[in-house]
């Protein structure tokens, strides 16, 4: 059962996509010596933006300050750009490009944006606390069989299922 998107071709088989993802991760281990990561790139962009607005404050802050004056010259920032380009390429070539806001019919655009923003803040914060997100911590560390990463993965599902009920209207038609 492959869900059909309203536009473009149907998505690829999830198992094959998973193998492609796993192979990419393996390649990353063998070439970079480090796994995949997305939130670090985002955090580096945050450090860059804060640095543009408040250069002295950012540089002297304990966390962002350690990344120096050019936080963007970091491999995970490049990887983040790569994700964007790869996603664009795949969406474009499969005809899945469409400017839209995804939501259930009963939800308003304003509410959807509000939850996306608040969720983003929580995810951005939690990723820094865990030193990675679903990619950099759960997937990468999980593939290396690290206990902490698997604990993190399990807790993501606990957190998600725990509150899923309250957000159901956002998604259901």
């Amino acid at each position, binding site marked *: 059962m492959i869900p059909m998107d309203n536009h473009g071709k149907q998505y690829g088989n999830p198992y094959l996509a998973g193998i492609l993802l796993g192979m990419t991760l393996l390649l990353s281990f063998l070439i970079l010596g480090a796994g995949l990561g*997305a939130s670090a790139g985002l955090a580096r962009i945050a450090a860059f933006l804060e640095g543009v607005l408040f250069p002295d404050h950012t540089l002297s802050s304990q966390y962002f300050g350690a990344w120096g004056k050019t936080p963007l010259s970091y491999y995970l920032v490049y990887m983040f750009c790569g994700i964007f*380009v790869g996603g664009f390429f795949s969406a474009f070539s499969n005809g899945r490009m469409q400017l839209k806001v995804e939501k259930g019919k009963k939800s308003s655009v304003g509410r959807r944006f509000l939850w996306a923003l608040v969720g983003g803040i929580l995810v951005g914060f939690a990723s820094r606390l865990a030193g990675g997100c679903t990619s950099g911590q759960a*997937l990468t560390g999980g593939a*290396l069989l690290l206990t902490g990463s698997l*604990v993190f993965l399990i807790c993501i599902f606990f957190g998600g299922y725990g509150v*899923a009920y309250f957000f159901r209207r956002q998604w259901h038609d």
Partner: protein
Amino acid sequence: MIKTFYGLETLDSTGALFAALLIGFFFGLALERAGFGSSRRLAGVFYFRDMAVVKVMFTALITAALGVAFVEQIGLIDAASQIYHMPSYYGAYIIAGLIFGVGFVMSGWCPGTAAVGLASGKLDALIFLVGGVIGSVFFNELFPLIKWLQTWGQSSQSSFGIPGLAFIYTSLGITKAGFLLLFSLIAVGFFWGSELIERRKIVDKEKTDPINHQTLQTVSAGIIIAALALFIFSGEKMPLEATRSTDSSGAVTTETFLQQIETAEDHVAPETLAELLYGGDVGVVAVDVRPPEEFTAFHIRGAVNVVLSELPRFVQEHKHKKMLVLYSNGMTHPAQARDELFRRGYRNVYILTDGLIGFREECLKPVSLRSLPTTPEKAAQIRAWRDYFLAVPPLTQAAAAPVDESITLPGLVTTDWLSGNMLKLKIKIIDCRDQNEYNRAHITGAVAISCESFRGAVNGVPSVLLPASLLAEKMSLLNIARGDTVVLVYSGDRLRDATLIGMAFERIGHNRYGILAGGMDKWVKEQLPTSSLLPKAGQADYPMPPTADAFTVDWRQTDDHMKQNTAVILDVRPPAYFSGEKSDEARAGHIPGALNREYKNDIYTAEGFSSFKPLLELTKAYAELIPSKNSLVVVHCRTGHQASQTFFVLKHLLGYKRVKWYDAGWTEWAARIELPIETGSPALNTNR
């Protein structure tokens, strides 16, 4: 053996950035193909509507986990040294995971999928990413308050010599291959469960796609067969004490490896080791792998004690040494450890033939007790070795002096702190001013020594820091024991005298040293107590430290960094010497590509004393020169003296993590005419 960018410490090179971009491309491609450019599909997993997240995540996890285990098994890579592993902080990860999960179901995104979502035109992904930036900034702003939380609940496991690095199979008490098999079965179970769940939720059963099922069957079978194969073949490997907790697979036996064993090239004869150590070869480190009690009772002079479980980390840190010679009483443990380290790609590890027993028999047994006659030359050599190797007094456990945990050492200490704690903490004070200044008045109890006493000619290079064994002897004479808190006192703007002695402490691995901010001038100005009497005589037994340090680089390493552009080379001499207008050396100029910031720019003088400039000012100045706190930096000057000051600033005041010291400096570089030089002012005006 594969060497990764991480293993080579070149993750910041252009090649690594390009590779990351390319890997990111495939990552994005895989996510988009999986349908993760849709937040509804991602959130669907939390309503049992669309289980793609579980399917993709677990297929990827198991593919990569089996892949890593396989490449390790065939000896393609040494994961311990070549792949970055994160330590486990359970408290932090549990809290972060719960928060993350809530954010995930609220927004329908995580950072990677949102990038793909934005790339395919989803506006809610853009909003999520803005939120992610704000969340990161929140974390940065709250960091001073929640710093402790980030490392809360560290695992008690320790693997690859890294505390807190925990493997799930060790946590569960099963073998790695066993866990992989179990994990594969769980994943396959999840896949079939997900299919069942989805079928129930979707009313229109016509939608069921038979191809999907066929793929699922193939994938399931493939995963289980691969895990079974790994499980069966992993049985060949011998467990090794040093790596029992890591269980790194290593069934590889290369031809060279066997040949080396056959021809005993992996062995070092006792006489050879004695000669090398006696000759003061700093490239050779004798590594005693016996328990600390036995080491304390007796060890080869200059040897370092490394327990087997710490060996991988030690070897990684000393991979640039010429020879690491492992020894125990016999040869079994060192031989096993050496074989494992060889498989992991270390080619500088050797074992001592016949171990410590053989060493005593061959090198230290008195001539009079030997059954075979010895030549006069041989007898003289044995006497010299006996004098050298047996002169070491057995280590005594230094009476632990009390320690103030509230200050960070190495670092700066204030006059207030020193005057308040010097008696309470039994602080040892070293006065590195001129002797006549010392004779007139010094801080009560301080001993006088010039920083020049800690260096001399080594291998023909004048004025380099002495080997650790000699430094330890000096510390003994200064009545400094291991674990003592030491404060260094300078006069005027000669902070570099204190930092040079600081390098001596660095080399012997003595971290509890600080520099008195403002020096003697500030102490006198504040009318704190002084004396003109000599301190009570005393002598300590400073134990023999490792002969090697991890921060000194030689011209070869500097040359490599220059050629490969893998480090910021920072020349701290005055600009006129940097440009080549002035010179006291064989050649004028500087190392090609080096940056210049004179050491004096880090100091200010006001109110009658000198100290380091405010941290913020230093932070900004060095951020102009060095890309990040993780960048590799090589500091040098003419003789290592001025550079010791910049080393202290970067490493201990500003927290740069990878600072190296080219001690021999321009004196050596200029005199080695095969090395390239450059003249003229730097393109970048760095002396502001």
